[in-house]
């Protein structure tokens, strides 16, 4: 029963991780930018929600404040930053420096404003719970899973069934060709950043209710979405979602073997080795292995 409890808690904890990972992977897929400014977006929208909460707004008002801040943040990053860098055909390193420095700038500004102490969106440490088949399930965990599933389903429907969504996928596949067919790559990039802002803000709302956030949290929390994106395979947003769940389960179960102080090390060394061994992700490596096996059998 201990394993079932760990599995459920890790799965539910993956709710916000999945949203952050999908936002990161989706941005990378369409814009081709490893957007580390997502760390800045994460803390900026959290503190916007915190201010709204301290102003006495309802839950809807708190979420709305976070969304307005998140959308504005990513719109500015895209329109002022990425668009200018794209115009001058900047290198990947320039995008990296820009996005990292933006995240750091946000952290410094928030430190100046709010200090370095941790804050939470929900003052209640314990959430109402029920026992289901011997596993303790809290209302917060169910909310996290439901919100993640609803938002991912909405994203899948948007990408598959709307003209704008299909245009974004076309731009992701070949921006030059998409523009030749009359699609606006710039509009697709902006829409992608706005959708990412919605996913991140939702993830932050779920996360901010359970863990304490500081202005520095963003740079630490961006690593798991990066790892999930690599594991799932660059360009495969659903792979990133699955990888985020897998990494959360791995994190939960590894606590049975390794002391908790080594959890960070395990994640980071896993990221390093994984990029080294399967840079195009686990699904691509599996496909490659199948092809090799099939080729061997045919010979």
């Amino acid at each position, binding site marked *: 029963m201990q394993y079932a409890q760990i599995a459920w808690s890790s799965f539910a904890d993956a709710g916000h991780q999945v949203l952050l990972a999908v936002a990161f992977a989706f941005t990378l897929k369409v814009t081709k930018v490893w957007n580390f400014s997502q760390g800045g977006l994460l803390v900026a929208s959290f503190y916007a929600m915190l201010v709204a909460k301290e102003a006495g707004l309802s839950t809807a008002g708190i979420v709305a404040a976070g969304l307005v801040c998140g959308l504005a943040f990513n719109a500015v990053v895209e329109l002022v930053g990425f668009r200018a860098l794209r115009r001058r055909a*900047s290198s990947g390193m320039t995008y990296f420096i820009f996005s990292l420095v933006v995240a750091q700038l946000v952290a*410094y500004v928030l430190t100046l404003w709010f200090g370095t102490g941790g804050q939470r969106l929900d003052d209640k440490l314990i959430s109402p719970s029920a026992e289901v088949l011997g596993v303790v399930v809290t209302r917060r965990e169910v909310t996290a899973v439901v919100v993640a599933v609803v938002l991912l389903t909405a994203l899948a429907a948007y990408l*598959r069934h709307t003209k704008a969504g299909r245009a974004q996928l076309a731009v992701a596949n070949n921006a030059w060709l998409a523009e030749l067919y009359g699609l606006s790559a710039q509009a697709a990039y902006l829409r992608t950043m706005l959708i990412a802002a919605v996913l991140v803000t939702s993830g932050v709302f779920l996360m901010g209710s359970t863990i304490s956030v500081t202005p520095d949290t963003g740079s630490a929390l961006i690593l798991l979405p990066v790892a999930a994106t690599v594991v799932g395979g660059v360009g495969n947003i659903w792979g990133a979602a699955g990888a985020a769940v897998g990494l959360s389960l791995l994190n939960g179960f590894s606590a049975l073997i390794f002391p908790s102080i080594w959890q960070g090390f395990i994640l980071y060394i896993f*990221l*390093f080795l994984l990029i080294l061994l399967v840079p195009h992700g686990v699904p*691509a490596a599996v496909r490659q292995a199948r092809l090799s096996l099939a080729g061997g059998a045919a010979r």
Partner: protein
Amino acid sequence: MNYVLSVAIVTGLYVSLSVSFNVVFGYGGLLSIAHPVFFGVGAYASGILAVRTGMPVVVAIVVAVGVAAVSSLALSLASLRISGDYLLIASLGLMLAVIEVVDNLEVTGGAGGLTAIPPLVSGPGRALTMLAIVWSLALLVVLVTRAAVRSDYGRAIAAMRDDEGAFVGLGRDARAIKTVLFSVGSSIAGLCGALYGHYFQYFSSEQMGLRTAVLLLTMVVVGGAGTVWGPVVGAVALQVIPQLLTFIRLQPAVASALEGIAMSVIVLAFLFLRPAGIVSARSRRRPRRSRPALGEAQKATAASGEGAA
């Protein structure tokens, strides 16, 4: 006076460090941000040997430089398999993993840092002697780098950076060059770390983290990547400008945040207004071919065949 000397010593160390980072990143085109790790490896290796085994400081420093060079193999081997954005992310993972190890081991002093590191030089003229050592090292590093990039080997490095496929196609060994670049850059970083630790007699993982990596990147980008004097100008400017804040009496936390904001704004301004840095590309021996904006990630997307979501 001691404060001014300390600032001058740290500036000298950062000159060597940023020039060594420029060797890997600017000249070699190897996108690794784990350079501060080797600064830390040098500081910890030398400090631990001197503190725990009583090894003479000079010998400990020499061993630490060797340890930093050997540990750079992790990255140089990685650079043989991956490049561009992937190397960048892998180096980030490696850097954070090393920091986690350092923070959780007893021998390194844990998150509190390694204390009571014996000094390299003692006595009343300690700071001035260290200043002379550090700036002599900086001058040596700059001059050797200048000579190296103008040599046949330097031209080979530039050729590898500009088009590795063609370089290898001509029968040249890119692997050897990458390994040499990483080990030379890391050795210098390790030496700087050891000198830093023995001067301040304290070292913690904070000095080898993401902030130091961003600071180094900033120094090279603001000064001018791929130029001899760019990182020197960047290091001096970005070490001296924040000191102006010390004249305003602020709480340390506020001063630190303001310093961070100032640095970030400077980098952003340079990225957009003068991307080539203070020392412009005119001083380069040959123009660099700009990498396509949609680089490694696009290739990977195309290669993995993940067209549809």
